[in-house]
């Protein structure tokens, strides 16, 4: 319990950090139109959400519960991924790390970015525009992705015979359709979903802000978090996966079997104002998990 408390305090501090920084920014920030991205407002409505992370019941792996969700309000999300040109401007400003091997063209999604790079970009554009930009949560991403979100229930690992699930998971991963190209494609190449968002589930996976959680489900169905690892974040795209936050180039090999994302990129959501953001973050923290 003490551990959970510590984490909550840490998260609260982190949540407060960015709005506080904003309050000392100029009262009327100069809005730079060249970095103004395209956003789509999606009104809140009910959707189904399967929690991210590892779930167990009675010490055995369990399916993540599928629950009916509704976001607190509408969400404004970029209708495309952040492009190489946009990220490049942040790097030129010295606020985003230069990615040495970014080999993308300017009109294509920025790839080869870690969660840390994406977060640096969000902070930079927030300063630049005076509007709070951030990565979406996994919940928000699933909601916005709509029909493109993939609810893939992989077989559970039975501790009595773990190998059967490993083999089944391995085969399921091997059966996944591969993107037709590895290099990022021009914006819009992978179509639009019903919410008007482009390239969801294409060959660029997207960072979310959601931390990796380990949870237990009690007999009454209540979920309790036993471990929070914010060094690993949920990555979304053609399938959901988890990545260490400094990884830029997902790959497999050695001990790791399985099929990694083709590329790591991101899109942002924007809040209507710093205080709205603070309110949202506090609400998220105070909500019983």
């Amino acid at each position: 319990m003490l551990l959970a408390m510590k984490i909550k305090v840490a998260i609260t501090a982190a949540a407060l950090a960015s709005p506080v920084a904003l309050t000392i920014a100029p009262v009327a920030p100069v809005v730079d139109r060249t970095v103004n991205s395209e956003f789509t407002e999606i009104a809140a409505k009910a959707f189904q959400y399967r929690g991210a992370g590892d779930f167990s019941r009675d010490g055995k792996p369990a399916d993540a519960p599928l629950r009916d969700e509704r976001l607190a309000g509408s969400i404004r999300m970029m209708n495309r991924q952040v492009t190489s040109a946009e990220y490049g401007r942040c790097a030129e400003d010295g606020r985003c790390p230069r990615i040495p091997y970014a080999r993308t063209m300017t009109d294509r999604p920025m790839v080869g970015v870690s969660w840390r790079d994406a977060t640096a970009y969000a902070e930079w554009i927030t300063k630049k525009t005076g509007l709070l930009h951030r990565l979406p949560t996994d919940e928000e991403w699933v909601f916005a992705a709509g029909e493109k979100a993939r609810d893939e229930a992989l077989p559970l690992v039975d501790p009595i015979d773990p190998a059967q699930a490993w083999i089944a998971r391995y085969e399921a991963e091997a059966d996944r359709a591969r993107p037709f190209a590895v290099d990022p494609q021009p914006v819009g190449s992978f179509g639009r979903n019903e919410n008007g968002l482009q390239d969801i589930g294409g060959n660029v996976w997207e960072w979310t802000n959601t931390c990796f959680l380990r949870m237990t489900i009690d007999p009454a169905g209540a979920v309790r978090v036993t471990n929070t690892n914010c060094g690993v974040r949920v990555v979304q795209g053609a399938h959901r996966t988890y990545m260490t936050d400094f990884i830029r180039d997902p790959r497999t090999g050695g001990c790791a079997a399985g099929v990694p994302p083709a590329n790591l990129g991101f899109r942002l959501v924007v809040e209507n104002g710093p205080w709205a953001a603070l309110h949202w973050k506090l609400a998220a923290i105070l909500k019983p998990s």
Partner: protein
Amino acid sequence: MITRRTALMGAAVAALLVATPASAADDLKLPRQAVELVAPPFVHPHEQATRQGPKIMEFKLTIKEKEVVIDNAGTKLQAMTFDGSMPGPLMVVHEGDYVELTLVNPETNAMPHNIDFHSATGGLGGGALTRVNPGEQTVLRWKATRTGTFVYHCAPEGMIPWHVVSGMHGTVMVLPRDGLRDREGKPLRYDRIYYVGENDFYIPKDGNGKYKSYQTPGAAFADTTEVMRKLIPTHVVFNGKVGALTGKNAMTAKVGESVMIVHSQANRDSRPHLIGGHGDYVWETGKFINPPQKDLETWFIRGGSAGAALYTFRQPGIYAYVSHNLIEAAELGATAHFKVEGEWNNDLMKQVQPAGPIPPGKSSAAEPAVRTR
């Protein structure tokens, strides 16, 4: 079948037959067996021990120069191959057999090639007698005088390493006539055999760090040589491509089956390791007259040699077969997988406690000294 009689019917026909195996080996009164080769990681059907006497084993390798993709990023290599695969097919014979190889260099190729068998004696392993230009073929016969797994490779004057690291290498396995044995002389058998050929590739990059591609092998030669001379491969892969032996192409086995893994590296040292398994019997240098080493964790394949490891799977699941320089395995591509079906053995391994919070108090695993029961 063309008989001697038909051959005598015309000088033109006879001239055509000069290079065919039937007339090339009249001096040997031995039975012949033509073998259809298969692409790696598979191996053509063969006897492990044989009661038959020595034979002339006929093989045919067609050299194919072709562009191939070697990783998931679409990096291209102007490959030169024996029979279109990297490595070239595994040829299995028994000690005392004669290997009679027809080497074909079709007109569609651009370069002269030859073949050097580490298992053959004299003539630079055959390299001195097998140089073929595009549009030519040649037949070489050599006697299998010693047992083991041996590399073969192309060895044209002036550009041997380039041909080898462009894909022109393969393996011969010469089995003892009475089969494999352990240190005590007890027979050893395998239920399956897989053939892993390791490639080290040296792909040039442009000014932006992007891999370059070329229209022909010749166009790639100068840049590739420059990368080769630094001795740091850009790719280390099994069977010609990152992921050639993973996912849908993973090798398979069942619990209880004994699997022979032949590992061949024509150019550079390697360290095969089966993650979650072992080498029950390992001929690290590949030569079967030497007793196999037992229970190895990792074995060493010297560049320019092929080794063999025999393992009986005892547990189902996914196994990674890697070169245990893990940088090469994970970053450069030297990873294969085995998918093994069967029943889990809780005695060999069991998850006693799944990951969970560290319990408070003195019984923490970090302080075993104060642990009580």
